[in-house]
């Protein structure tokens, strides 16, 4: 299988697109107004505003204690593998009784592998309620794949594996961009490339509310970074005084935007310039877009999502109809002390996602915003004593008014460390690829089927580009 060549082909399609953009005079995507670029004619901006929000769980989420088998047979398998004693928990197994109030009963009597009944972690009651309401769906065993792969094909290497499996930084990058660390563009940014023609202000197409990451970088689209409290302004410039001198303030502005020959200096000056140019504009827009939803106090993910909600509320002033956002939380690399810490993290996640969804209801855009989780990798089902180690596939969540929720998507793995749906110690061999996941999101967002390979370079090797968890995705025109 000549996979690298196909990756190269889709990259060349990008370069072609970029050079077309350049030829049209859109040399700088920092310019506020990139309206009128006709390149992305294949991109559908119908249906009003739409946004995708990536919630990245850094460290590799322990899916085994996020979505837990509850039926007696499968719970017993889970407990045995994770060092639990009967139904009491122990090792890294949660007690069965703690799961009773978060059991997920899918609508229409959907059954999954081995008739597993899943419960959410006990600290996720809000997402359980969203599941029951039909606005949340778990997607089972998602992970990077270059092509569908069986355990035998994994073992005999007849199908290529994604490079550098089980490595944090590389799998973060692979999830975000289809390639290991060093990748230049992520699929959020590549959707931004296609979508920015729909926006009056291209700069606000890809918004990052967390640390720098490749996900939101496109060939043209650049992530614009906001803090949890909006744009951070250069105080001396806002005040017009640096140590009470107006002249020093003007000098500061000149100096900040001067790059003088060195490439790194020029890049730094460019970011200073962007920050100076757009900060006040963003904050003015945010000021007129208040949200009353309670995002709590001290939940850092909720703080980021509140900033995202603010940007969505300000979409009219910002001049955007298509946006891709990224937020994140860390702390998921629990090789030790999984019990306790992990439930705490999931409680924060549960609260933050629910508050954000509530805010989209308040803003009247619940059907137009889809939130999804991503993570470095899933973890081993096997215990290393009081934690779990790096794995591959993992379970994820999508949340939003367009989510065809209240049921599961993808294939449930056996609760096992020796069946062929895992590659040892319960490291799941993914059955839904990140490309299928991203394609489903992209189609809903407005990407045309013919452009999907630019978002998900391996999608052509999978049976369908639409896993079906988003309601309107098949209605795409």
């Amino acid at each position, binding site marked *: 299988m000549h996979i690298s060549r196909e990756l190269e082909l889709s990259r060349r399609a990008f370069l072609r697109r970029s050079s077309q953009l350049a030829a049209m005079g859109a040399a700088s995507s920092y310019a506020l107004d990139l309206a009128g670029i006709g390149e992305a004619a294949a991109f559908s901006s119908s249906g009003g505003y739409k946004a995708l929000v990536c919630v990245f769980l850094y460290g590799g989420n322990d899916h085994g204690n996020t979505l837990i088998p509850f039926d007696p047979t499968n719970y017993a398998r889970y407990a045995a593998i994770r060092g639990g004693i009967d139904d009491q928990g122990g090792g890294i197994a949660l007690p069965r009784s703690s799961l009773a109030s978060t059991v997920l009963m899918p609508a229409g009597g959907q059954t999954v592998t081995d008739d597993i009944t899943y419960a959410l972690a006990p600290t996720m009651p809000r997402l359980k309620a969203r599941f029951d309401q039909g606005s949340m769906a778990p997607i089972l065993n998602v992970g990077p794949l270059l092509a569908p792969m069986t355990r035998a094909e994994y073992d005999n290497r007849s199908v290529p594996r994604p490079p550098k499996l089980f490595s944090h930084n590389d799998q973060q990058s692979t999830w975000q961009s289809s390639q290991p660390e060093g990748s230049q563009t992520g699929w959020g940014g590549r959707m931004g490339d296609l979508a920015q023609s729909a926006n009056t202000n291209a700069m606000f197409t890809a918004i990052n509310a967390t640390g720098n990451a*490749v996900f939101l970088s496109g060939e043209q689209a650049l992530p614009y970074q906001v803090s949890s409290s909006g744009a951070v302004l250069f105080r*001396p410039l806002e005040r017009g005084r640096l*140590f009470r001198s107006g*002249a*020093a303030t003007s000098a*500061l502005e000149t100096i900040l935007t*001067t790059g003088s020959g060195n490439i*790194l200096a020029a890049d730094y000056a460019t970011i200073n310039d962007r920050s100076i140019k757009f900060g006040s504009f963003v904050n003015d827009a945010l000021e007129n877009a208040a949200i009353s939803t309670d995002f709590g106090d001290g939940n850092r993910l909720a703080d980021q999502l509140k900033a995202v909600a603010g940007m969505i509320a300000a979409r009219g002033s910002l001049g955007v109809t298509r946006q891709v956002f990224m937020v994140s939380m860390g702390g998921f690399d629990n090789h030790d002390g999984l019990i306790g810490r992990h439930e705490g993290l999931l409680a924060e996640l549960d609260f933050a996602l629910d508050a954000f969804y509530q805010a989209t209801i308040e803003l009247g855009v619940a059907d137009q915003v889809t939130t999804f989780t991503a993570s470095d990798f899933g973890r081993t089902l096997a215990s*290393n004593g009081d934690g779990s180690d790096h794995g591959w596939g993992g379970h994820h969540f999508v949340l939003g008014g367009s989510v065809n929720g209240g049921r599961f998507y993808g294939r449930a793995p056996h609760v096992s460390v020796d069946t062929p749906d895992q590659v040892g110690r319960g490291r799941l061999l993914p059955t839904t690829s990140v490309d299928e996941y991203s394609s489903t999101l992209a189609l809903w967002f407005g990407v045309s089927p013919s452009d999907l390979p630019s978002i998900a370079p391996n999608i052509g090797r999978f049976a369908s580009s639409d896993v079906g968890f988003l309601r309107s995705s098949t209605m795409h025109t």
Partner: protein
Amino acid sequence: MSEGYEPWLNREMRQANDFTAQQYFEARGFDQVDDNRFFNGTSTGDYMIWSQLLSGGSAVRKRFALALSEFFVVSLNDINLSWRGPAIGEYWDILNRNAFGSFRALIEEITLNPAMGVYLNTRGNRRADPRRGRVPDENFGREIMQLFSIGLFELNQDGTPRLNSGELIETYTNDDVTEIAKVFTGYDLDYSQTTFTPDPGNPSRTIASVDHVRRPMTADPSKWSRSLNDGFHATEEKQFLGLTIPAGTSAEESLRLALDHLVDHPNVGPFFARQMIQRLVTSNPSPGYISRVAAVFANNGRGQRGDLGSVFKAILLDEEALDPAKVADPSFGKLREPMLRFVQLARTFGVRSESGNFEVRNLSNPANQLGQSPLRSPSVFNFFRPGYFPTGSQSAANNLLAPEFQLVNETSVAGYVNFLERAVDTSAWFLRDLSLRYSAELPLAHDAAGLVEHLDLVLTANQLSASVKDTILSALEDIPVEQNSPDTDKLRRIHAGVVLVMASTDYLVQK
């Protein structure tokens, strides 16, 4: 520098740290069990490292130790044990003690250090127990290969990847991880000298004395907090990276064999050399530069491999580092790390600590502080990755790496200037324990041109461009100062000058 670089460097490198972290904790009483309950927090760890970086001698040694702390990462954010300050202090002392010693000795000390043991889970790691489904923790085994020694794929000695039919060659498989993980089993904290004192805040509980977070972890179970007869080391055969450690080998001997084998891997020299050059000199060293340093790593000229003193000298004295023409090369240099900018500000202008403790805390907030704080990396992957470049940038278009730019975005650039404005006069609440004296600058303040020349020299080694200097000079002339003006007026001009220089990209990029 009339004597030349090398004699000066030799002299600097001979200086031991004259006031270690351990001495700091002892002198400040931060290692005592009392009502302050210092055993319970992390702030004394921040105070310690700021005191180390902002004051005292052996600055060259500390600069290298700081670079090492970004390669062998342990973060105060995430070491879950009591006495976190002294624990990370011992880690810092290890890096200082070994900064010009042997790589092999250093990697063993950091492997057995309690802070690392807790951070990457070697502490309490046990052999497999099939009955309970338990397998050894793989965290340290994986990261010591990926991050601390050989990296993910095979390298030529000049740091370029080796290729097999055009493909990268991975250095290890997941089976290697699973096998080497067995080496790091059976170790736990050494309580053999530890005494216990009632917790003043909760007398039903006792607090172990600080020594157990300083001594290397031990595989001797009689020294653990709960003394046992038998340990938990995996004694079965271990096979990884072409090495077989026979069944029945002790924990200590397994560790020795594994570390010898890792350090002898041909990747270590170029892998380590490239990152240290990036930390100290330039983000994009030439293959020739890397290969010259890697050659010194392989053999210091006296037959020793991994002699760090020789490696660091090779980095600083390389023709590429010293070539004056490089200053004008648009692709040379590195972005100064935010924490180093602050250290430079403080040391250059005579920082003092009111309390003597250097009570500066975590400055990681990018919106109003540095967006970086020493020994506070967000993960074992450091504050930024060696292969990072900012997307949509000229660096990327020119295939140039810019690791430190992983911290640079619209928020952090504004946050830095706002920090600077309140750091030069230490008016920020989080710097209230510090003051800056500006004793060399006050006599110059009435002479704006002289002041600019002086700041250019002490902050950028005369690398301000003429236009930036002119811009700064006109701004400072707008702040009227006479020779007999009060110090407050003089300081206002000095503060403005320092902010303007340190905000300039001529300063921000070290060349």
